[in-house]
């Protein structure tokens, strides 16, 4: 135990004051995110991530939001296991036909008012896979979508920005 504490102490807090990565500071985005979540979601935004058929690239980057450098929880965002607990669905695509009904049911299980963000090129427009016998293409072909975050896959910073934009553009209470 002492060694764990020692390691924690020596390493300190690595969480970034929202980093450069060639972008406006992460903290700036994060603080805005926190303010909007405070105002519109009682300080806590619950997201259910749904992989509706993706290659798993988007999931890796969504997972990265929880690593200690981005640590998105500090801004009031947390990922939940059940759509019934969610304010927002973050859906990666393309929506495979085998996931079509599962996605619809997940959407229906999410209490209103609910926000849906389509993640990645495939979620936004079908990407490399498009529409076929096996793929419905974009998420918006299956459920109503409020915003998209492009990128293959979108970087964690772009995911944060996209989530911020989606909740900022939404009118309070709507």
């Amino acid at each position, binding site marked *: 135990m002492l*060694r*764990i504490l020692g*390691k*924690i102490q020596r390493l300190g807090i*690595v969480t970034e004051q929202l980093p450069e*990565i060639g972008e406006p500071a992460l903290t700036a985005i994060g603080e805005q995110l926190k303010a909007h979540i405070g105002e519109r979601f009682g300080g806590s935004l619950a997201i259910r*991530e*749904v*992989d*509706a*058929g*993706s*290659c*798993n*690239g*988007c*999931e*890796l*980057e*969504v*997972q*990265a939001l*929880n*690593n*200690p*450098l*981005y640590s998105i929880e500090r801004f009031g965002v947390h*990922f939940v*296991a059940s*759509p019934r607990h969610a304010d927002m669905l973050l859906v990666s695509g*393309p929506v*495979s*036909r*085998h*996931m*079509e*009904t*599962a*996605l*619809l*049911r*997940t959407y229906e299980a999410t209490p209103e008012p609910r926000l849906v963000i389509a993640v990645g090129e495939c979620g936004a427009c079908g*990407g*490399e*896979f*498009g*529409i*076929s*016998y*096996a*793929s419905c293409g974009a998420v918006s072909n299956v459920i109503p979508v409020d915003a998209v975050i492009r990128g*293959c*896959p979108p*970087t964690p910073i772009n995911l944060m920005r996209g989530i911020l934009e989606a909740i900022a553009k939404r009118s309070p209470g709507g």
Partner: protein
Amino acid sequence: MTPRDQLAAFPRRLADIGVRVEARESPGLAPAQLILVKPGDWSRLGIEARSWGCRWVASWGEEVDQAGGTVIRVNTCFEHGGAYLVARTAVPRAAPVLASHTTSYPGADRPERHIRDMLGVVYSDHPDARRWTRHQAWTQAECPLRRDFPAAGSPPARTAADYQYNFLLAQGGGVYEIPVGPVHAGIIEPGHFRFQAVGETVLKLEERLGYTHKGIEKIAEGRDAEGLARLAARVSGDSTVAHAWAACMAMEQAAGLDVPSRAVWLRALMCERERVANHVGDNGAMLNDIAFAFGFYQFARLREMWQRVSREAFGHRFMMDCIVPGGVATDLDPRFIATMRDEAHALGQQIGKLMAIINDLPSVADRVRGTGVLKPEHARALGCVGYVGRASGMDFDVRRDAPYPPYDKLTFAVPLHHYGDVNARARMRLEEITTSLDLIEALLNGLPAGPIRAAWMHPAADTEGLGLVEGWRGEILSFVRFGANGRIARFFPRDPSWTTWPALELLIHDNIVPDFPVCNKSVNGSYSGHDL
């Protein structure tokens, strides 16, 4: 006699016992040798291959025109001592009946059901009549990989849930069933798991996959080489480098194209970086699954730092689309050689310090030792590759046993364990990180100068190629055949997950349900790479 000679002698053995075998030249498939077998001898081929000690690698089919009519051609790849053999047969399209290899090789079960669902081949003695890849998006009468099936298909307005799949049910006092998924807890891919349990103990787990089936094999048809490389890079996003490499290798083999050595070394550098990133991340995720948050956050931090360097050096955090037909898309700026060398050294040290802490904790040892044991005989029967196989005594690594450039010029250790528990798989990954860090240093030190890409040339119609790459999950097989004008006629990528998903069903037996997450993560099969 070396193992390689043994496989060369195998066709003679087949001929000796009366199996009609014809050896064929197919330069694109090299180093694999190609033999033609009559469909009536297909069953004996499986039996003999098994008794010869061959590993069943993969099987794929395609519809082609031959003298005498349209046929469904079925290929099965075997491996023995690092040598590969592709056996090929053909059955009439109108009556595509073939014997199954599942009776000899349990690992052939799902691949054959995939071929049945996609091409309509009827395996006469297959022990499992249930569909596999097909859910409700197309009917049993339709075969998406046949030429008369348009890529758009004719799907229903809304594809229904596939709720009538017959899972095996356990019965008895106190037995209950737990259905999980396809949308299940966590930020992960969709799949369905059906547990039969008594109390907390798992009597049986049955997987139902295919939810992320995106028609990859079908929509590959008609693409040009670059388009196929992009698609291959998205077969499984966490293995984007390895799948792109395998597909490009197959296309380059078909085209007879020599890839500049600098490009090949850079591909290996990216592939080792991908291996390290995934093993580091998964080690953290395994610790998370046993509720040891300290370990999770430490490894998550290391993975993030690692991916940032990948982005700086190659322009993408996963190095997606960095491998292209004929070479690589971007050169490595010389300043990154020192950066990456220091980074590799520092990562090795960091992990060493972390493991000194983690190894000292009985609460971690208690959760991973003896948990989720994959017995060596089961690993062998299923033909498990990668760290899952190597943690259960399957001593095989494409990089060492069927070396492709640049690994033919490098020496490195391939770790091996025998206990097959979660602990062994976690050790494997840590030791593979060490090997990869050494390889990264060797690759940086020996990086040849020169061009990074050879001009692409369309191969002649009907040429085929085979790519074999050791991705971070294990051996990836990629097959391509070109049609006219350099367009792809057939693409089949076999992700190593095909061999490890069935292993998860076996290794969870008699474990407790709460240990399923760590068992699953220790294997970490790809859903997308498997569902295609």
